[in-house]
């Protein structure tokens, strides 16, 4: 086997609300599937934190990661937490959250304004962005009806140090994302569903391999598909290694829990 170390930036433990018929369910099955696809390490969130309540869902992730069956799967797993803005008090204070992020060795933050009913604009989510920027905590988010390219542009303008990775990317993105790549060095996209024809090669050619982070969207989306996109990309082995796992490792290793 060639020395490509795939580290998946987008894996969900637990079981989603709506699942494809016949698919094997459960966290251990998800991890076994990753292993079948040559993925030995992953950044994981719990579905309960995304489709349910972020606070209890993040707690469930911590418990799940310690379960014997999950440990026995043999993958190296890193925790990702879903957050909501501070105004309601659900996250506690900024310092309380910082402490909990460190205590749980959280290596990435997920922000889903459309799922959790808040605005991703500065007036609502600014404190979350500031905290993540100060901690150099990677943030994963996705576009939605309420958080589009204009909102993304404003966010990146206001927070040039925020390390942001866009999820749920697809073939329609280049006309917007290319301009954003020109303007902001701190933006990357997940590779798994970035299915513009020749898209990976073109991003590498124009901006280098640092703008692509391997992520599959497992278990709902095929990890094998995500591997296929990178494995067969015509980008050279060094670029392939960075996309497959090096970029995510750099993001996670750069975290400073205390700025």
């Amino acid at each position, binding site marked *: 086997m060639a020395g490509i170390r795939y580290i998946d930036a987008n894996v969900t433990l637990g079981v989603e609300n709506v699942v494809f018929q016949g698919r094997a369910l459960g966290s251990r099955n998800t991890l076994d599937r990753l292993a079948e696809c040559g993925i030995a390490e992953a950044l994981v969130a719990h579905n309960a934190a995304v489709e349910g309540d972020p606070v209890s869902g993040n707690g469930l992730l911590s418990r799940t990661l310690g379960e014997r069956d999950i440990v026995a799967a043999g993958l190296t797993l890193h925790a990702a937490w879903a957050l909501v803005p501070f105004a309601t008090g659900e996250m506690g204070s900024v310092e309380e959250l910082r402490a909990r992020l460190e205590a749980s060795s959280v290596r990435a933050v997920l922000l889903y304004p459309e799922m959790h009913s808040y605005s991703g604009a500065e007036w609502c989510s600014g404190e979350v962005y500031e905290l993540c920027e100060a901690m150099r905590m990677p943030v994963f988010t996705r576009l939605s009806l309420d958080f589009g390219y204009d909102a993304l542009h404003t966010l990146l303008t206001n927070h040039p140090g925020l390390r942001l990775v866009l999820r749920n990317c697809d073939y329609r993105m280049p006309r917007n994302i290319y301009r954003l790549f020109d303007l902001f060095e701190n933006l990357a996209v997940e590779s798994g569903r970035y299915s513009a024809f020749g*898209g990976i090669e073109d991003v590498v050619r124009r901006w280098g391999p640092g703008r692509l982070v391997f992520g599959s969207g497992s278990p709902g989306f095929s990890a094998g598909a995500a591997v296929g996109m990178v494995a067969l990309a015509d980008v050279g082995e060094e670029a392939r290694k960075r996309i497959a796992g090096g970029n995510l490792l750099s993001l996670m290793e750069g975290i400073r829990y205390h700025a």
Partner: protein
Amino acid sequence: MRDQRTESRFATSLLDSKALPTEIWDCHGHLDAVRYHYIPAGGDAGSMVAFMDRLGVRAVCISHHMVVTADLQEGNRLACEAATRYPGRYYVYLGYNPNYPAEYSLADLERHARNPAVVGIKFHTSTHVANPDDPRYRPAFEYARDKGLVILSHTWGTRDISGVAKMVREFPTVPFIMGHSGGYEFAAVYDALRVARENENAYLDLCLSGMFDGQIELFVKEAGARKVLFGSDIPFMDPRGNLGRVAFARIPDPDKERILGANLKDLLRNRVR
């Protein structure tokens, strides 16, 4: 960590960043640019052939983007021209737009009928705003039946699939490929599966940007590997994700070979080299 990788030679090839160990035939492709988005690798015939050579794709069955978006006649002309320039690499679905008078669309089918690369007719139910059982498609079904052509239709949602269910029964000798197999709506996908299982002439293609895990396994289990065709939407989308999805699917390697090429070759038997 215990190595749990499947013993599939397809999976092993990918993990070694190598092309898949079989000749690939793609049932669902297009050609040239499209209005919706930029195509980084270029969608022209020459660029696509270079890409196909690198990945072991022997041939793609195409309809030009223009036949589904802008200009039926120009699109059909350009697709046939590409197939003539690259013999054996492109086969053509001629577009049929039910919004035009039948004689207009049929005339264009006749115009290219003697091109040996023509293997079928393409419907696009979304851009042409017509379900497969729209009466205005009937002349195309009759033409396909009379000429031994395949129909590939964009199928998106349960309404499209129910239209397919009706027409494949009415035209049992016309092979009908359900492009996208119903799309993102799971109920439509399950309906498409049922149609493929119940009708000898109905087929499923894997062409989709949201590549659900478990879909290929379900298709093979319920309809049989023989009914599943690799389709990519190239150059509208990149094929390598779906190649990976097949390579790592939990099905035997012989089924992967059938899906990636043998099924389409069988389907087109008298028309391809």
